[in-house]
């Protein structure tokens, strides 16, 4: 399987990647802006995400919530997400509506500010505060990722604060903050546009030029605030124990690792597969099936670019006993560190990684998002076809060396949740 890739740039610096596939009459558009919560200054947390919401509140030629309505009206899907390093916006539409999607995306990049109002900001601030309540404050374990970020990264590192921001900072965000954020980061030279699916190549190029070409190149992007360089190891163990409104114990063990794109990152990713990639993986086999110490387990990486990345291992408890769960989980990680994985384990892990990659690339939206990511992070859209080779290059010896060196108490943040009721008893 080979994903076709054709890339070019507009005079305004916008990078564009086309990837044709005529199987279904759909086309996916995806825009990555190289800005995320890492770009927020102290006191302005949550601004990148709040801004993403404001991008759906209209532009000069697309009033109100016309962007979403315009896509839904033709049967498309549309959304945007904000994360540490980036913000993405995407829609999948019938292929006959490619130009509609280009018009909508370009209007809010080129003709955004005239439509910005205080009323819209106040409404979306309220929506985002409810998003925070729903996903974080009123959700058992809902703050795990922000707590892990705080434990793994120092206060002056841009990953220390939560993507969704604090209620205080959200309340303080002004219309001028929003406009400034737009002027600073939303420029064609800070964006990647990917189009995947059923389109005519020449027509697509003409339409991209027509809609995005007139938008001027923006000013230079300012450096990321704070200390962006951190060592790839924590240099000790940090722990946090939360007695809260949770029904059962849960433990997260997080490790600081080399950032996404470094060889070590791929080793860590293979480790996550070996630990919890399937029901034959170490943690599931030992903790869920054999010892019945956990309800479920997980292991995954944060594929981040600024200074370092993270490998997270999770155990969901079967009762309120967080200490026992923590002991069991860490004992399995220790066992994993003790010896090289077998050749069969390595083979299964690779099979799992490959199978999931093929399945996920069936979706045009996922394909477009990955291409935008590879282009934005590495200036290399072809990695969508070659990244599997980087996984295949990982050996059992690499895994063993990495596990011994990086997955011990000298590089570990342990976050344990226990039910407040059990703690009090």
């Amino acid at each position, binding site marked *: 399987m080979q994903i076709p890739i054709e890339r070019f740039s507009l*005079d305004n610096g916008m990078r564009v990647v086309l990837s044709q596939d005529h199987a279904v009459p759909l086309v996916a558009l995806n825009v990555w802006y190289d800005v995320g919560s890492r770009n927020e200054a102290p006191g302005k947390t949550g601004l990148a995400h709040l801004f993403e919401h404001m991008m759906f509140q209209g532009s000069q030629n697309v009033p109100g919530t016309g962007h979403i309505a315009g896509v839904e009206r*033709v*049967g*498309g899907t549309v959304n945007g997400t904000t994360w540490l390093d980036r913000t993405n916006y995407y829609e999948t539409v*019938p292929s006959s509506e490619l130009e509609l999607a280009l018009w909508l995306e370009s209007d809010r990049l080129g003709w955004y500010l005239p439509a910005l109002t205080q009323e819209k900001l106040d409404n979306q601030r*309220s929506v985002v505060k*409810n998003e925070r309540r729903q996903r974080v404050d009123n959700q058992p374990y809902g703050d795990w990722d922000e707590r892990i970020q705080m434990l793994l990264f120092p206060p002056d590192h841009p990953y220390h604060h939560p993507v969704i921001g604090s209620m205080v900072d959200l309340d303080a965000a002004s219309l001028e903050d929003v406009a400034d954020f737009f002027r600073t980061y939303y420029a064609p030279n800070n964006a990647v546009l990917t189009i995947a699916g059923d389109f005519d190549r020449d027509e697509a190029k003409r339409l991209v030029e027509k809609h995005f070409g007139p938008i001027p190149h923006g000013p230079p992007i300012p450096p990321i605030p704070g200390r962006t360089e951190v060592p790839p190891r924590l240099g000790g163990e940090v722990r946090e124990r939360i007695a809260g409104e949770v029904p059962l114990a849960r433990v997260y063990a997080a490790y600081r690792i080399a950032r996404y794109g470094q060889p070590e990152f791929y080793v860590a990713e293979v480790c996550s597969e070996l630990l919890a990639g399937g029901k034959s993986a170490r943690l599931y086999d030992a903790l869920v*099936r054999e010892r019945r110490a956990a309800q479920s387990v997980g292991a995954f990486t944060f594929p981040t670019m600024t200074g370092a990345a993270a490998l997270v291992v999770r155990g969901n408890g079967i009762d309120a006993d967080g200490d026992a769960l923590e002991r069991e989980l860490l004992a399995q990680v220790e066992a994993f560190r003790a010896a090289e994985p077998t050749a069969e384990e390595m083979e299964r892990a690779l*099979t799992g990684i490959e*199978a999931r990659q093929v399945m996920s690339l069936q979706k045009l939206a996922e394909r477009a998002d990955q291409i935008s990511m590879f282009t934005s992070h590495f200036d290399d859209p072809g990695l969508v076809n070659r990244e599997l080779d980087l996984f295949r290059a990982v050996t059992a010896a690499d895994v063993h060396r990495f596990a011994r060196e990086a997955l011990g108490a000298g590089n570990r943040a342990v976050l344990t949740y226990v039910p407040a009721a059990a703690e009090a008893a």
Partner: protein
Amino acid sequence: MTAAVPFDRSRRPAPGPLRPYHFPAVQRRTLSNGLQLAVVEARSFPVVTVGLVLPSGALAEPEGKDGVASLTTALLESGAGSRNAAEIALVVDGLGLSMDSWASWDVSEASFTCLRARADEGMAVLADMVLRPTFPDDEVARLRAQRVTSLAQARGEAGGVAGEFAGLYVFGRESRYGRPMGGTAASVSGIGRDDVAAFHAAHYRPAGSTLFAAGDVSLDELAALAERHFGAWSGTPPPHAPPPPSPERAATRIVVADRPGAVQSAIRLSHPAPGRGTPDYFPMIVLNSVVGGNFSSRINMNLRERLGYTYGAHSAFGLRRTSGIFMVSTAVQTEVTAPSVAEILRDLREVREAEVTEAELADARTFLSGSFPLPMQTTDGLAAKLEALIVNGLPDDYFSSYRERVMEVTAADVLAAARAHLWPDRAVVIVAGDGARVGPQLEALGLGTVEVVDPASVLE
């Protein structure tokens, strides 16, 4: 690049030529043992999704054995043929299968997606699981405990409690729909290996079952695999149990599932709805698009974009084979709980009073017809459509006329569907939130007594 030509940005670009989408033909065959086969081909990726639909689910469970259907499907990977659970996991992961098995109210299913080259070996595992499960005692005990834990997990979340309350208060504890599909701690503790084995022996039979595949596979290929792996299977399951009746109520009832200190309230407004085979299906999905199915629907535009009370609100008709449930779902900040309920009720009443606008009707129809091909990008998505035909007994040409039937729906049809199938004044409104704060607010709506209930006192 050529220079950009100026154009009028204020006008939405005209659509280009519309390329038709044809749902692939459903190809069928029946094996001599009664097992039906169904295939839709899609060859763009070397991937195939295979599934087996067995004709019995939670509604077929014996009295007092709530959860046995779900437990049976969960145990299929716990030992089968000559392999124990760990050995099955080694094979499944070694082949890169994403294997899953589950029960719904109507059916039990097992399914996997894999690279085409692994389909034969995948089918061998599936056949072992379905035909030759061993149900080891220790795995029965483990998965019973898992069920209890996952129920505790779900009840820890506002949405989980609200959902369970909705089933209970809409259908009542005497109805199977009123009790959790996977069973409760009390019910699963009364299920032993013998109960699981008996459910399996009675219901895992080829007659009435369908083995289906979507993706890089032909009917001949599936038939050869089916003969090899399922050819020796035999038997007929008992007939379907009659579905539980759908109770109706005279007035809307508000129940608060008390979560002291909660900063948000999870709201579920719900009432019974017809089954998937209803002749009103197309007007109902257009209606739902207007009311709450999409971002741009009335309820979300009102509660989120106008009022800022929530991160999102939506509605859905959850239609099972013989009956269904309508539900509006949202989570709102505690202070505005009662106003949110009032707004939802108003939106539902209004759509019963007057025809939807021409623009709303047009948008809903083009949304539904335009979005129809979206799931067909993946073998999973195609398989889900095929599964819907099988589970609900819909005709094979159903999806080839789907878009035309959506486009035929009129504003009068939508109004009739709203009057027949939306019951704002005979609904159950569940609010999982801080009872002390939301109780008085909700009382002030004047919709009768608001019951504030400790979840632990009613959930078994």
